């Protein structure tokens, strides 16, 4: 496969996995957790590197899951102790991220792991680090990890679809039915962590937030069905990722920045044009809505 094709495939995988996870983030009203975990996984990666002295995908994933779980446990703990919800998110993730930054600066000193790379990502480097697979041949490591993560995310969402739905919509009822709401919460935090760290290499910590939140927020405006929302959000993610690549090569600018910009455009268009919540339909269909209300 050509250099461009690998980048597009990697970008599309980021868009798809982030788009799917983003739906649950939005519906569980945890969008800011994406911001938190996208930063604290850096600490997980650094610690995994310091422990194993290897920068392989496998170690990074485990480090990220541990960092992600630590983040959500600390946030929950502070909240249960009476710290305001958003303040506890802000305190925890900036502190853990800072520890990660300090460790990089003082302990690592390695060209493969620097703060700018972690924040902005560099998808153009992705095709250069390859691994050889039987039957398939050489494949960029980041692309392979993203594929594996996407598989895990899709299987987890489909297998536990109704459990995700009920714990997102009505956790009290779910708990009264004996569904382990807290286990589901931490399982979701783990999925979010592995998605973030897999997307990290390609788009960086800041842009991964855009890929997680914006396509899902746009999809939310278009549909009243959860399954459709998953499909739309994944589609918006892929579309934004691919469009972002071409915008970047057209303007000769940052690829991850362009991808995030593309998600913003998708959201803006959805906000203006969606049939149910959009600004335009609000003006066009006011008489029909009034009629429907009076019939009730």
């Amino acid at each position, binding site marked *: 496969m050509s250099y461009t094709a690998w980048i597009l495939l990697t970008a599309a995988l980021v868009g798809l996995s982030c788009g799917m996870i983003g739906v649950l983030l939005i*519906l569980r*009203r945890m969008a800011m957790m994406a911001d938190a975990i996208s930063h604290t996984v850096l600490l997980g990666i650094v610690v995994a590197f310091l422990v194993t002295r290897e920068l392989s995908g496998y170690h990074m994933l485990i480090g990220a899951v541990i960092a992600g779980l630590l983040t959500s446990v600390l946030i929950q703990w502070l909240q249960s102790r*009476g710290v305001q919800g958003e303040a506890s998110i802000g305190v925890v993730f900036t502190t853990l991220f800072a520890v990660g930054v300090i460790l990089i600066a003082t302990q690592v000193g390695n060209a493969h792991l620097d703060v700018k790379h972690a924040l902005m990502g560099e998808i153009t480097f992705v095709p250069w680090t390859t691994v050889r697979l039987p039957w398939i041949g050489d494949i960029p490591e980041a692309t392979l990890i993203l594929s594996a993560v996407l598989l895990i995310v899709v299987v987890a969402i489909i*297998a*536990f*679809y*109704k*459990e995700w*739905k*009920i714990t*997102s*919509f*009505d956790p*009290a*009822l*779910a*708990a*009264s*039915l*004996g*569904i382990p709401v807290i286990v589901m919460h931490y399982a979701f935090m783990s999925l979010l962590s592995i998605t973030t760290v897999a997307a990290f290499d390609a788009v960086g910590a800041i842009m991964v937030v855009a890929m997680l939140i914006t396509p899902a927020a746009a999809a*939310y405006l278009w*549909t*009243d*069905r*959860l399954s*459709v*929302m998953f499909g739309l959000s994944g589609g918006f993610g892929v579309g934004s990722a691919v469009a972002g690549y071409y915008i970047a090569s057209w303007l000769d600018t940052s690829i991850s920045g362009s991808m995030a910009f593309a998600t913003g455009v998708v959201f803006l268009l959805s906000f203006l044009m969606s049939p149910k919540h959009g600004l335009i339909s609000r003006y066009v269909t006011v008489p029909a809505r009034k009629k429907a209300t009076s019939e*009730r």
Partner: protein
Amino acid sequence: MQGLAVTDLSASYRKNNVLEDVSFELPQGSLTGIVGPNGAGKSTLLKTMLELHPKLSGTVTFAGAPLSKMRRKIGYVPQRGSVDWDFPTDALDVVLMGLYGAVGWLKRPKAGHRQQALQALAQMGMADYADRQISQLSGGQQQRVFLARALVQDAELYFMDEPLAGVDAATEQAIMTTLRELKGRGKSVMVVHHDLQTVEDYFDHVLLLNRRVMNYGETAEIFTKDNVYRTYGAGLRWRKEVPS
């Protein structure tokens, strides 16, 4: 059949005691109103019995077994305001959620489950709204959907948190008809209730709660002016004195 038995149940919220040594026994086949001022711990009592809120001490049993072992026999209707009604789903889907325990892990609801859910919606007068997005329902209709969801659970004991709050008169009547029917079928229903005017009409048992059980028993005996005053403290106007 032995009913619900609560012994010395206590719970706190951020170090403030919200329930202290709550004890009562509910005969099976009763319709009980939980009545008390704001902050009396009415919702917390339901949540603590269901172990949604941690208890400090005490036991809760139903039919002789710990409540946590009897989940399939217990139905819970949370406050309507506790969920996001903009969630992308329709009325039928919300009712189906009541069956998720019965459907089991890794399985999808089947046609039979949908049939049950449709029947429950019809019983609440909501048959025509099955595929309506839940944000497009009125408050009363949303509450009827919640009641339909409780019906499909086919429980023996129901805990309902303010099911009559903010609903229209027709919905209030439909819900009360349903609750009486449940009672008629030998099920027990505990309802957090805030309207003192209707307590005598609606409930055969009353639990007057203000952190502690102030009084508990049959409505005719317990629901007296003195007891209600004692539960609410100063500042309460008794029924007929409420200006219209």
